[in-house]
């Protein structure tokens, strides 16, 4: 891998870093958009040259001064230099002095970028084009005194230059474009789009728009909407949109709409509302900014966009409620479409990752008799707590008359530590009450508090007197019995009170935290990867089964070989289990270059996303093994949504992208059930059947069926039934 990189040109992935430096202006990393933008930038050769030279200067310097390689490749250290270079290239004539100034300005922009990154990233904010603004203003002000750097006159006599460049034909084409009978607002939109690259040709704008749409339909849609909103706004307040067009600062509305509407935020109707909200703010900043900077003969350029986006993102970040209106992008996948589709499936599916998995504090099935925000005592800061009891067939919590604590099924039953940790506090010696009585003086009764992490404690209360097996500061393991359920404290009948809390004292304020991997009793058994049991739920801990558990344990570096049988044809399929530098694991099909990323939790196997070709067996495996609970749970069924981004009808998906933020009508539904109940002692075989449905507006248009056989500690067979064809992967 390393040698592959070293042999790259000058530094790894040189081309990507250049292309991405261009596309980052629109937050994108898309090679097609990259090529388009580079071409467009050369519509003005001076600007194009200036931009490219600045990008190269900045990226190479970043590389040779040892900055983060991934950021260089992503173009994060290039795009501000690009903007500076474009601007300067447009303003000045090409000569040696200018080249020196340009290179110096590119360097300045890099230094400012790194410094600003250090400052704003603490607040979780992007630096946007702030480095460009600072660099560009400084350069513009200072070059007035550099006599050898001369202003260019190209911008003034456009047609003359055209003629020089490409004869009369070019002039004709140019004029034809200028005269296309488009409504003013559309022309202004394209011009503003071109202006982002310091190009004022309509054609440039149209090309950029095409590239933008190719990268992201949602970005294009929101940019149009944002600009239209601005147009309306200016009409309403009685200002001339022409001023926007003239000074080329209409792009502020476009970029802000992309940033706030779709890129840093999950695209939705509410993100659209936020985009509307930004219009007047931008208008204020544009007008005020120009008046303020006018005396210095400077323009505001993208300052309004930068300020508004930073302020609003910070505002969204510090919210305490309504996190989904609109939701911020958690893991940036570089495309609004991908972000949105991942958000659709993962907000419920993977939100718990990174939390400490907590098991239920007991053996067997217990019933929640008071839940979160319960009627009796789970109120105010003690809201996030549970009371658990055991009920019999008839729903009673006791045998005989229930006059003695011993009559209650839960009384004396083991209470377990929910995770590893140190015992933070123990209270013992409080008598168990007579039934019906309550000790309000020592209301928590005999209790244990365990520290699992800084700011994450669990408390177990009303324990049986004398049953506590642990001492303060003792280390306890997950699932270890620590005491017995009792009836001490404010407990009229035996029960276990449990809560998570942020502090280590008995009775501290409770913490909103879920349990992991438990089952719920009901008409159909339900599995929860992470959830909070509700009142009356009958719940118990899930137990992983060694067979699927081991079969789905892919060791990094492991080669997995299959025979791929399609009717008469048999091919060999080889997958590699790999891990990247961020510890993300994936199966890699080297032949097709496809990757299926997965996450392995103790009780569950998840595929998270897929990259590459969808006609490969790896893609089918991604679909068919999308989510597997690694336990022996006969009849257990799971249902999940698979990201729409892998929908097989690409053209339809393209159209869908425009609708998805408001009305997602495409859906991929995954269902799996365990076929043969299996004992865990002989490790013979577990079979599962899964089904993936592709749906358009609620109608299933295609179904793929999968059959998984786990055998001898591995996945032995995987078959795919797609319509009438059956294909099989057989482990070699």
């Amino acid at each position, binding site marked *: 891998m390393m040698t592959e990189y070293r042999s790259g040109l000058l530094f790894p992935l040189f081309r990507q870093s250049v292309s991405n430096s261009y596309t980052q202006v629109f937050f994108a990393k898309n090679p097609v958009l990259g090529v388009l933008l580079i071409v467009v930038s050369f519509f003005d050769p001076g600007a194009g040259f200036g931009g490219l030279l600045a990008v190269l200067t900045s990226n190479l310097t970043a590389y040779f001064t040892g900055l983060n390689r991934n950021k260089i490749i992503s173009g994060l250290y290039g795009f501000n230099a690009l903007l500076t270079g474009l601007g300067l290239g447009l303003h000045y004539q090409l000569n040696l002095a200018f080249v020196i100034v340009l290179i110096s300005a590119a360097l300045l922009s890099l230094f400012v970028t790194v410094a600003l990154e250090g400052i704003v990233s603490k607040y979780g904010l992007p630096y946007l084009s702030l480095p460009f603004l600072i660099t560009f203003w400084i350069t513009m002000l200072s070059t007035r005194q550099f006599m050898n750097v001369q202003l260019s006159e190209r911008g003034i006599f456009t047609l003359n230059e055209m003629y020089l460049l490409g004869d009369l034909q070019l002039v004709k084409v140019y004029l034809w474009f200028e005269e296309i009978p488009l409504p003013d607002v559309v022309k202004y939109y394209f011009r503003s789009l071109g202006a982002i690259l310091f190009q004022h040709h309509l054609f440039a704008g149209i090309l950029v728009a095409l590239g933008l749409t190719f990268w992201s339909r949602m970005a294009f849609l929101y940019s149009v909407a944002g600009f239209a909103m601005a147009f309306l706004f200016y009409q309403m307040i009685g200002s001339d949109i022409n001023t926007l067009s003239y000074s080329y600062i209409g792009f502020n509305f476009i970029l802000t709409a992309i940033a706030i509407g779709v890129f840093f935020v999950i695209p939705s109707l509410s993100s659209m509302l936020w985009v509307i909200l930004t219009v007047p703010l931008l208008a204020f900043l544009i007008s005020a900014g120009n008046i303020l900077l006018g005396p210095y003969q400077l323009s505001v350029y993208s300052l309004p966009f930068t300020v508004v986006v930073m302020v609003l993102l910070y505002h969204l970040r510090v919210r305490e409620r309504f996190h989904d209106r609109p939701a911020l992008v958690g893991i940036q996948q570089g495309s609004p479409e991908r972000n949105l589709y991942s958000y659709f499936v993962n907000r419920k599916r993977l939100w718990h990752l990174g939390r400490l998995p907590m098991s239920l504090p007991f053996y*067997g099935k217990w019933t929640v008799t008071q839940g979160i925000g319960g009627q009796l005592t789970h109120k105010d800061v003690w809201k996030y707590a549970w009371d658990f009891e*055991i009920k019999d*067939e008839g729903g009673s919590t006791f045998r005989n008359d229930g006059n003695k604590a011993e009559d209650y099924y839960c009384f004396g039953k083991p209470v377990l530590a929910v995770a590893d940790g140190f015992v933070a506090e123990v209270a013992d010696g409080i008598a168990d009450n007579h039934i019906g009585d309550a000790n309000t003086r020592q209301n928590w009764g005999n209790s244990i508090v365990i520290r699992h992490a800084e700011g994450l404690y669990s408390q177990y209360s009303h324990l049986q007197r004398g049953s506590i097996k642990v001492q303060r500061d003792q280390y306890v393991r997950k699932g270890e019995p620590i005491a017995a359920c009792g009836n001490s404290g404010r407990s009229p009948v035996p029960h276990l009170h449990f809560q998570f809390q942020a502090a280590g004292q008995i009775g501290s304020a409770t913490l909103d935290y879920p349990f992991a991997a438990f089952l719920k009793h009901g008409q159909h058994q339900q599995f929860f990867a992470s959830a909070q049991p509700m009142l009356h739920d009958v719940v*118990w801990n899930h137990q992983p089964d060694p067979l699927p558990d081991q079969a789905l344990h892919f060791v990094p570096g492991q080669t997995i070989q299959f025979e791929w049988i399609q009717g008469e044809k048999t091919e060999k399929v080889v997958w590699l289990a790999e891990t990247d530098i961020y510890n993300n694991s994936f199966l890699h099909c080297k032949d097709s270059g496809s990757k299926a990323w997965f996450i392995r939790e103790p009780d569950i196997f998840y595929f998270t996303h897929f990259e590459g070709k969808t006609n490969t067996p790896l893609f089918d495996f991604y679909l068919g093994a999308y989510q597997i609970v690694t336990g022996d749970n006969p009849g257990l069924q799971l249902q999940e949504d698979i990201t729409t981004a892998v929908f097989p009808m690409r053209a339809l998906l393209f159209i869908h992208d425009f609708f998805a933020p408001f009305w997602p009508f495409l859906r991929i539904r995954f269902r799996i059930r365990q076929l043969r109940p299996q*004992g865990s*002692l002989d490790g013979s075989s577990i079979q599962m059947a899964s089904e993936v449905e592709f749906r358009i507006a609620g109608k299933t248009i295609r179904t793929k069926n999968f059959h998984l056989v786990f055998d001898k500690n591995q996945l032995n067979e995987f078959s795919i039934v797609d319509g009438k064809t059956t294909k099989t992967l057989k482990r070699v």
Partner: protein
Amino acid sequence: MTMTSKKTYERPVIKKLENNMPNKFGTRTIFEPISHLEGQAVNDLIAKYGSPLFVISERKIRKNFRKARQAFETRYPRVQFAWSYKTNYLDAVCNIYHQEGSWAEVVSGFEYDKAIRNGVQGNKIIFNGPDKSETDLRKAITNHSLIHIDHLDELYMLQDIARNLNIRPKVAIRVNMDTGVYPTWDRFGFNYENGQAWDALNKILFSGMMDLVGLHTHIGTFMLSPSAYAVAASKLAHLAQSVLTKYNHEIKYIDMGGGFASQNTLKGSYLPGSDISPSFDDFAEAITTALMNSDYRPKNPPLLILETGRALIDDAAWLVSTVLANKRLSDGRRSTILNAGVNILFTAFWYDHKITPAQPFTSYTEDTAIYGPLCMNIDVLRESVTMPLLNKDDHMVIHHVGAYNMTQWMQFITLRPKVVLIDEQNKVHVIRNNESIDNIRSLEHVPDHLLNFE
């Protein structure tokens, strides 16, 4: 009240005057007639299905099972029940347990085949007992069943078969031990105290041809002392730890067998079984506490297997029968002859079964001997029991007959009756038909020269 209504006739009672009782009629009969079983009138059942008749309650079976499972599952992380086929192997009954998640515990080739025919997966059958033929073992090995080795001869045979079949059998050994109760069941399995068990374990692990998956014990029957199970559990755990220490091999399960007492009253017991039999919770507490406190510290806690049979099903079945006659014995005692005898109620040899009339009766009672219909002196259901005055054709209900009767009954003198199951909707299903003379004769063959006689 001018009308005089005719009083019901009651036959006269002769009762010995006992001078230590303040009441000349002695103690009152406190039991009540049981006229309905799970919502079905005993009279209707007999009218429709004949008398005698075994009646089993699906509701009661499931309830008992869930109670037992809850008692263990709320105390220990991994619990599995295996239905003891010999206790009651009527297919319908077995399948109720299998539906509830039970595996099968069998002790013969016949029971093994029955479990397989019921659809139990091979790897969920535990094969116990001293009598496993080579054919049985081959079958069990091929099906990946769990084989509990009873003696060294079996161990050697198993090794040979494993070598031939080239399959590694999943085995456990049965361990017998002193748990402080009498009698010690030392005829099954390998003894713990004298080192036989450890020896057998070494033989298995050294052979390298078998997978040692579990340890099994079954310390007795109708155990009234949970503490004996605690002793047994800690001894098994100790063995498991020894294996782990010496071979770094984890035992996957500990099978505590069965033998939990039911609510029946043993003959000679001073107090009724319902008062002295421990509950599932008592047994569960003893076993799980002992296991958790043991020094066995594997990575995964071993699965706890329970093979309890009797305590799960005894009170879920009744035998209903009819009074054939009343007699007075030579000593003046009353005797009543029922049409159900020890031929179908084998457990009458062990228990003083509770017997109640199925119709209302008055408070007058007599000491009564209750006999079965067989022309054999041993056919006694109760030697002496206080009974109200019974008449010919009265119906009687014999309680707690679910365990061992429908497997140990015999076709002796007369034919065996029907067995019905009342489901959770109180619907009655015949789950075993009564025998006919053709059933019995179909197995017989008379040589030609014996066909005719004058």
